[in-house]
Structure formats: structure tokens, C-alpha cells
């Protein structure tokens, strides 16, 4: 791990580089807005009033701290290692996404902007953004791939109820990647009045750093909670990885605890070997997508390839640059989980613990069960239970051939 600690110096928060990853590959038109966002974030981070407002909203609006639930039945099933769930599914709006949204919405108000736009895949980030827009009285437009509006129709209705304008994106693959393209096009046109509330830890600097910092509340709490319960640091912390926001939020406060293993689980769809997957770190190569250098699913001409996953929230051919760097330095490990493995885990957690996870989260559950068996019964593992599965009930009913009427 000495290499890693030396490499830690290569995180340059000023230019947003994580070793060779990160940076800004965007039109010059957006540079001043990114600079403004970064400057406002740095000012806010040093402002006690901003921190108080943020903490107050997290506590009294989001419902933090989220509990750390011991999953005893799941532990038994997985060979005896103690498994804890960081219950982000219990947050207001049902996932971890709200942490970053509240932070960025406060920044939007500070910048004097009146309109927020966002992309969404599973709809969780869109719902969180629409929620914050309602709370702060901001105009809100959510871009969502047409395919995702179908498989996550419940969340579309939620966003509309909250007063957001949901724009189905019909270009390209009609999923998250293209929703980001459309949001970027809107931003480049309306940048003076509008904040782009990017929902993941990808995109140009400073988004990966800001998103990670707002989300790191999860890891900070989990670290404290597990120390209180077990008296020591966990053997491993785990999370699913699409763009990587819930994973980086949990991982980051443990990065310097070199005895704690970090494991991320990516969506392998039908299996990496089939080409129909979204496991960017396991099956991608280094390239550029959406303003950042990271691992990307792309061909030799630099064209982004379509990703595939049963989970709309992980169905993305890129990944946050800090994860790329954690992978290459050997600090974190990333593993592929297929649709079938994830859906089995979806059912497993529902039946063993009475917790229906988001399908995204189910990837982390599946991977962690394998990990627990490897690590043995003395291990302690914290999983980021990043979201609840209400939005996925229709998909799951179809998958398991459940007929609600019979």
C-alpha cells in the first residue's frame, strides 16, 4: 500500500486530477461556469453558516444519520461474517442521491441561479433533484432516457408530482448516457441562469470532487457507527458502482485506513463476455466521456458503446475518475455482477431481512455475499444499502413472473 499512499498525493483537487484520470474535457463555453461552481463550493465549504444549513437539512429533512443495520440472517446465509447495511434506503426520497442534491441545491441558491437541470437513470437522482427544487423554489428540468422513463415510470410520476418537467431523451441509446448529453446541451445554452446538478461523481472537474465530498457523509457516519458497535474498523466496505457516487461516498473516509478493503460491484448485465454489460472498470479501457478521463466502454475510434444492465441506475458506459484511480493504484477492487446474480440477491435480501433493495443495491448485496464467504466468519463488512426497491417492483415482478392479481 505504500504505492497507494504515495499516489494519494496525485489527487490534485485544484485541477481535479486523480493521477491521469479526471480533468475537464468540455467546451470553453462551460469553463467559466465550472470555475464559478468550484469557487462557490470552496467559499461555502469554509463558511460555518453553509455547513450549519447543510447539516440541519441532512438531519431534519433527509433524516440523517441513517442507521447501520446488522443483517444477521444474511450473515448466516453468507457463512457467518458480520454484515451491516448502511441504510441510505431510509433517507427521504429513498436513496443516497439526496445527500449531494441538498449540497448542490444550497450552492445553486448561493450562486443566485433560479433553475436546475439534471439527468437521471433510475430516477432516484431526478426525484431527489425535483424534491430539492420544490423545497428551494427552483425551476427544475430532468432529462431521462426514453427507455428509462418506461422501466422507471413510477419515478417519472413522482418527479412530475414534485413539479419538475421531465424530458424524455430519444437520441442515441435512450438511456442515462444520452440524458447526460441532453443536460449538457441545455447547460451550454442556459449556463448563466442554470445550475447543472450532476448526479454522479463523473463529469468535468469539480463535479467528481464536490459530489464525493457531499456524499462522504455516508462513510463518515458508517465509520463512526461500526467503531461504536464493534470497537474496530471493518474488514471491508462494499457498494455498487455505476457512475460511482454511493461507492465513493462510503469508500472515501476509509481510503487512508489501509487495512479496510474497498470492493465495488459493477453491472455485468448478461455477462462481460457477451458484450451486453455496464462493467466499465472490469471491461472498459481508458478514454474520455462526458468531460472526464476515466474507464469507458468504447471502440478503437473513441465511440462510446451502448451499455446494458437490468438496473437503470448502473446502465452507464463510464465511471467516476476517482474510481479509475482507486482501481489502478490497487486500493479498491471492482467485480462484475450479472443481472441474474443481482436479481437473486434482490430476492435474498427481501426474504432474509425484510428489506427490498433497489436493483442497483442488489448488485452490492450479491457481491458481498461472495466476499463474505471468502473472508470467513471473523470478517466484518459494511454494505452501502444505497436505495430502496419500491421503484423496481414492476421490473422484479416481471423477472420473477409474479402476477399481482392472482
Amino acid at each position, binding site marked *: 500500500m505504500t504505492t497507494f499512499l504515495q499516489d494519494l498525493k496525485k489527487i490534485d483537487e485544484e485541477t481535479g486530477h486523480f493521477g491521469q484520470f479526471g480533468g475537464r474535457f468540455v467546451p*470553453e463555453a462551460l469553463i467559466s461556469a465550472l470555475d464559478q461552481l468550484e469557487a462557490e463550493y470552496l467559499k461555502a465549504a469554509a463558511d460555518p453558516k453553509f455547513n450549519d444549513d447543510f447539516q440541519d437539512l441532512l438531519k431534519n429533512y433527509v433524516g440523517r444519520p441513517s442507521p447501520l443495520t446488522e443483517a444477521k440472517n444474511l450473515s448466516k446465509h453468507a457463512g457467518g461474517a458480520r454484515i451491516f447495511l448502511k441504510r441510505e434506503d431510509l433517507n427521504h426520497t429513498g436513496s443516497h442521491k439526496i445527500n449531494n442534491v441538498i449540497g448542490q441545491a444550497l450552492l445553486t441558491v448561493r450562486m443566485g441561479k433560479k433553475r436546475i437541470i439534471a439527468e437521471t437513470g433510475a430516477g432516484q437522482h431526478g426525484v431527489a433533484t425535483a424534491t430539492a427544487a420544490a423545497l428551494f423554489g427552483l425551476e427544475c428540468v430532468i432529462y431521462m432516457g426514453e427507455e428509462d422513463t418506461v422501466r422507471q415510470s413510477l419515478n417519472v410520476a413522482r418527479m412530475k408530482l414534485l413539479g419538475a418537467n421531465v424530458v424524455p431523451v430519444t437520441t442515441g441509446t435512450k438511456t442515462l448516457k444520452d440524458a447526460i448529453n441532453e443536460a449538457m446541451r441545455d447547460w451550454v445554452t442556459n449556463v448563466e441562469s442554470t445550475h447543472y446538478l450532476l448526479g454522479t461523481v463523473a463529469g468535468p472537474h469539480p463535479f467528481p470532487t464536490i459530489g464525493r465530498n457531499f456524499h462522504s457523509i455516508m462513510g463518515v457516519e458508517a465509520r463512526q457507527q461500526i467503531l461504536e458497535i464493534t470497537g474496530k474498523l471493518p474488514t471491508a466496505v462494499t457498494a455498487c458502482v455505476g457512475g460511482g457516487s454511493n461507492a465513493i461516498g462510503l469508500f472515501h473516509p476509509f481510503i487512508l485506513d489501509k487495512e479496510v478493503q474497498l470492493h465495488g460491484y459493477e453491472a455485468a448485465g448478461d455477462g462481460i463476455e457477451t458484450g451486453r454489460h455496464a462493467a466499465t472498470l472490469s471491461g472498459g479501457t481508458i478514454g474520455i466521456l462526458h468531460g472526464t478521463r476515466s474507464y469507458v466502454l468504447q471502440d478503437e475510434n473513441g465511440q462510446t458503446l451502448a451499455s446494458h444492465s437490468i438496473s437503470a441506475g448502473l446502465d452507464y458506459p463510464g465511471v467516476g475518475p476517482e474510481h479509475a484511480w482507486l482501481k489502478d493504484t490497487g486500493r479498491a477492487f471492482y467485480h462484475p455482477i450479472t443481472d441474474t446474480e443481482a436479481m437473486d440477491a434482490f430476492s435474498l435480501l427481501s426474504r432474509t431481512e425484510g428489506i427490498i433493495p433497489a436493483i442497483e443495491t442488489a448488485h452490492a448485496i450479491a457481491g458481498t455475499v461472495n466476499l463474505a464467504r471468502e473472508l470467513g466468519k471473523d470478517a466484518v463488512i459494511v454494505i452501502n444499502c444505497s436505495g430502496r426497491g419500491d421503484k423496481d417492483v414492476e421490473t422484479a415482478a416481471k423477472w420473477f413472473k409474479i402476477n399481482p392479481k392472482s
Partner: protein
Amino acid sequence: MSLLHDTFLKAKSENRAVLIAYLPAGFPTIEGSIKIIKEMLESGVDIIEIGVPYSDPLMDGPVIQQAVDISLHNKTGIKDVMHVVKEVSMLGKPVLTMSYWSPIEKWGIEKFAQQMTHAGGIGVITPDLPPDESQAWITQTDKNNIDRVFVVAPSSTEERLSLVTKNVTGFVYAASLMGVTGTRTEVSNRAEELVARIRKHTTLPVAVGLGVSTTQQVKEVAQFADGVIVGSAFVRIILEQADLSKSIAAIGQLCKDFARVLRKN
């Protein structure tokens, strides 16, 4: 680098702006794009920008997105782009490519610059590569005598204009408005102001693009810029006209119209 320089200089001596046309390679087909570009260059276009198709063109509006989709559907790769560059540079006019950064970086920065030179291309426009990230690109374009064009926007601060213009060679590409490519009913009044601000930082020629599609707009922009860039207007003709020879004729006519108003300015 002299061909581009000479082209602007010659136009200046004729007291006119240069006409720059954009077309994605491989649209509507690879051979079709060669024929159309040749027609453009024979109908008064001074400089051609050949678009490298990219799957995620976030600076482009629906018209060019559609063209790029067709080009990618035709499986246009960088090899094909170089083929188009080679064919059309035989006409002796400056040929540039315009590419998002992903294809160049993936293909290989050095390889791309070398292949451009071998194909007869003289410059590359990179709309999403800020100078801050372009160290390797600067090295390779210098080494291979390729002009390096960056794009600035009305939102660019003086500090950014200074940084960008210091790293540009050939000409500065000024985006006339905040937004994506596509035809607009009027030229943004921010274009003229931006050109004036750019001139405080550099003596290089300044060309204006984004939203310029009519003879009236070309005439207007030519009053304050050294070059006028037209893209979506040509693409639209091809999208609306299935018959290639008819769209070639219509594009040739439009180029001649633009060239004529530039000479009357």
C-alpha cells in the same frame, strides 16, 4: 501552416472574409461526403472543416446529431476520415478536421496528427479540449505542422481568452452564441462583442460559427469577423433531399450565394 495563413491573407487583400464550410465525414456516405466537399470547394468555399463523427456530440444540435448518427451507422472510422481528407485536399485548399477529443485520444494523439499530415490536412479544431488539458496535443501538432484551433465562447473571461489565444495557431474559432450548433433566425449580438474582445489578445484571424445559415447572416458576420463558418445549413439540405446529385447542386448554389455576398460586402 502557411496554406491557412495565406488563405486568410489573400481574402484580406480582397477585402473580404473567408468562407468556411463544415460537413461530417461519412455523411450521407463516405463517397457522398467527398463529392459534396469537392463541390463546396469548387463553389467558393475557402476552407473546409471535416467533422469526425462521435457518438456523444454535446456541442451539436439535432441537425448535426442526425447527420453524425447516419455517419456512424455507415461505420465511418478515423481511417475513413483520413481518406476523405486525402481526397479533398487534392483540390489545394486548406482542409481541417473537427473532432471531439475522445476519438483523437483513443486513436492516439501522435498517430492522429501524423495521419492528418500524411493525408494533406493542415489543421484540427477540438471543440471540447481546453488548453489546460492539451499538453500532449500541443507537442504533437507542433511536431507535425498541424494548426491547432480552439473554440471560445461569449462566456469566456479575459483570462480564458488570453490562455486560449496563446495556444491557438491558424485562427481562433469564436462561437457566436451560448448553445449548440444549428440554424438560428438571427445572429447573436454577442458575436461582434466577442470578436472585439478576442482581438485584444491576438492578431490571429477570427472566424465565427454557430447558428450562421443564411446569406444575410453571412454578410452580417463578415463585417466584423475574418471568417464565416457554416455547417447545419448544408447538413439540413442533405437530410431533406434523398437524391445526392440534387443536394450537391443545392449545396453548390448555396456556397456560390455565400461567396457572392462576401465579395459584395
